[in-house]
């Protein structure tokens, strides 16, 4: 399907600040399931932002405003053609799967995560086991905005029993790694079939399955990614795949206004019309 993405992040400060910088991981890299038709990331001046490819193979744009200012905006706008690959991702990989078995502070195991990972023990195939894990997670971590934050660990989210897609992804990654399966964090966009605007992009997970390669799992929606998903970055956890990481100077308070719109281009089949959770 053809998907259009319009994503605006507006920063407003209650007093002028001299400098702000953001790293932006919001550019899809092509693979068998995705072709980029057009994609642009622009900042305050309207110019294209400089970019580079990081160690994970992500495209990172960098936005800097080095003058006194009280507001700024980053606008991502693009169009891609996607195909359903049953969640399978085949793309050139700079880092071998084995690397993605290492933990980070956000995915550090605990007894509760160990127990959750062990629950699907009877299932014979690894793929079934990962699907089973994906389906259990939203029942243990009920979707609720505002209960967790960027630095919430998998262990904390599971203990709280509340969280958003980022927490679902971390719990999935932590459990998969406990099963000795390489797993990683994915950030990206999701078309939900609805016309409304959302306040955030989406996050899910990928696990490495022998013979299939990297396979996506979206615990928040209980499915493997379809043609409705646009992958933009991968990493060991949220920090290395975060859509936006920024820093500013000055003591002013920041207000963030985010609007994410993912629409299917008319004339294309719209098979994925059920409402899905985005966060």
């Amino acid at each position, binding site marked *: 399907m053809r998907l259009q993405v319009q994503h605006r992040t507006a920063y407003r400060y209650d007093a002028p600040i001299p400098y702000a910088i953001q*790293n932006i991981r919001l550019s899809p890299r092509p693979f068998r399931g995705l072709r980029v038709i057009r994609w642009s990331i622009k900042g305050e001046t309207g110019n294209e932002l400089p970019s580079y490819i990081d*160690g994970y193979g992500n495209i990172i744009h960098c936005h800097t405003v080095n003058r006194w200012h009280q507001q700024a905006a980053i606008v991502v706008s693009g169009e891609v053609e996607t195909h359903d690959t049953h969640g399978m991702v085949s793309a050139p990989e*700079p880092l*071998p799967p084995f690397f993605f078995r290492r933990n980070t502070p956000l995915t550090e195991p605990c007894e509760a995560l160990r127990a959750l990972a062990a629950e699907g023990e009877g299932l014979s195939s690894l793929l079934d086991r990962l699907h089973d894990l994906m389906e259990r997670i939203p029942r243990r971590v009920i979707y609720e905005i505002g209960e967790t934050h960027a630095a919430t660990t998998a262990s904390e989210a599971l203990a709280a029993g509340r969280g958003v897609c980022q927490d679902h992804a971390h719990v999935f990654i932590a459990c998969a790694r406990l099963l000795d399966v390489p797993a990683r964090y994915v950030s990206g966009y999701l078309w939900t079939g609805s016309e409304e605007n959302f306040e955030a992009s989406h996050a899910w997970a990928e696990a490495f399955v022998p013979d299939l390669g990297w396979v996506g799992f979206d615990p928040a929606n209980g499915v493997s990614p379809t043609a409705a998903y646009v992958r933009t970055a991968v990493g060991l956890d949220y920090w290395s795949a975060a859509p936006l990481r920024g820093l500013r100077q000055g003591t002013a308070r920041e207000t963030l206004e985010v609007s994410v719109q993912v629409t299917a281009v008319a004339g294309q089949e719209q098979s994925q019309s059920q409402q899905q959770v985005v966060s």
Partner: protein
Amino acid sequence: MDMEQGRQLAQSFDEMGGPGGDCRPQYRVIRSWLDGAESELLRLKREEAEQLFRQIGITFAVYTEGGDPERLIPFDLIPRILDGQEWDYLERGLVQRVQALNAFVADVYHEREIVKAGKVPEALVLHNESFEAEMQGFTVPQEVYTHIAGIDIVRTGPKEFFVLEDNCRTPSGVSYMLEDREVTMRLFPELFGQHSVRPVSHYPDELLETLRSVAPERCSGEPTIVLLTPGQFNSAYYEHSFLADEMGVELVEGSDLIVEDAVVYMRTTEGLRRVDVIYRRIDDAFLDPLTFNPDSMLGVAGLMQAYRTGNVTLANAPGAGICDDKAIYTFVPEMVRFYLGEEPMLNNVPTYNCAKEEERHYVLDNLSELVIKLVHGSGGYGMLVGPRASEAELGEFATRIKAKPEAYIAQPTLALSTCPTFVDTGIAPRHVDLRPFVLVGDRVRVVPGGLTRVALREGSLVVNSSQGGGTKDTWVIDLPEEPSS
């Protein structure tokens, strides 16, 4: 002195020749000078040295509770002497080792051929705390990663030198090497004049040349170089300001630098000035809060983008610290063979890896004869010297090793060589090591000698300044031609 210590010292090789032993040729002048020197004179000279160091302002903050945090690092008056031939061999061995280490780091962040060849375990590389995924696939300027390497060397006999550890992260101590020479020359000009001592004072020029030679390709004119320090609360801040001063480059903190459109600038009174090479003395984790530790206040936001875009050079490269890992260390001789196709000139100390069951059993059975170190430790913290340890300490380490075997390695307790040292009781042998500094740029540069560290406590084998060690001036001297026998 108890029996254990007596045995230890009796076994040690004394670099001067020891009491009763024949004086080795490089020490002849020093020996006769020592024989004639009154303790009172040496005491006066030591006081003079202390005053000189205080004037210079050299201090070393030690991370322990109590004590004077600004105390002077002890300096021993009596120089440690290597003859030119000994040094020339060491130097060739150092160049070889550091070239292999640099090739290893380049490989680690590209194809990992050494892992594919089965020479180094994949987990030791990819799951290493010091492996920086953010470096994957990036080819750094001149393919240099380990610009400044400090290689710690110990000696057990006339020709027996061993590498104890490699320091490719942000090795420190070179300012002591330079100041010790300065002070020795002022204290003993005549003694110095009687020897043909190879100079070390050009180290800052060599460092500057090294840094200039690795400027980004797109830097066309004279590169602007800065030294990035975590600030005055860092234990090595004196060294940072000293080196910046000697090189004539700006000493900056993270807040003095700013990234705009993937270019690093320094704030100056005349506005922003583009920076080409950063000699950074802050750890990887704090370099760029947008890439590494998000809470870092020490680094520069956006630095990794400028770096990977090819607009700035970082020395040493992030992720080069993987060489400092004491489990990686055991593979360095293999690296020399793998990357250079040569036999290693410098030997490693035999090392037991506690992660391996068989070796762990050996270590636990022989704890009282071994030195136990943390794989990621440095500065002599968290180590156990078996022959010096109490029953309680041995028991505690056995428990720790069993709980987390992969965190520990063990080495035999080496009878480190001794050098004459002026202590409270007069002149006595004390154990030493040597940290030469190897610079890698368009070519490899080594100044003769390095920093000699001395364990001032009788019988002690721990030379780290954080553990009561001191320093000595290190002379590489060319002996007059003697008729060959």
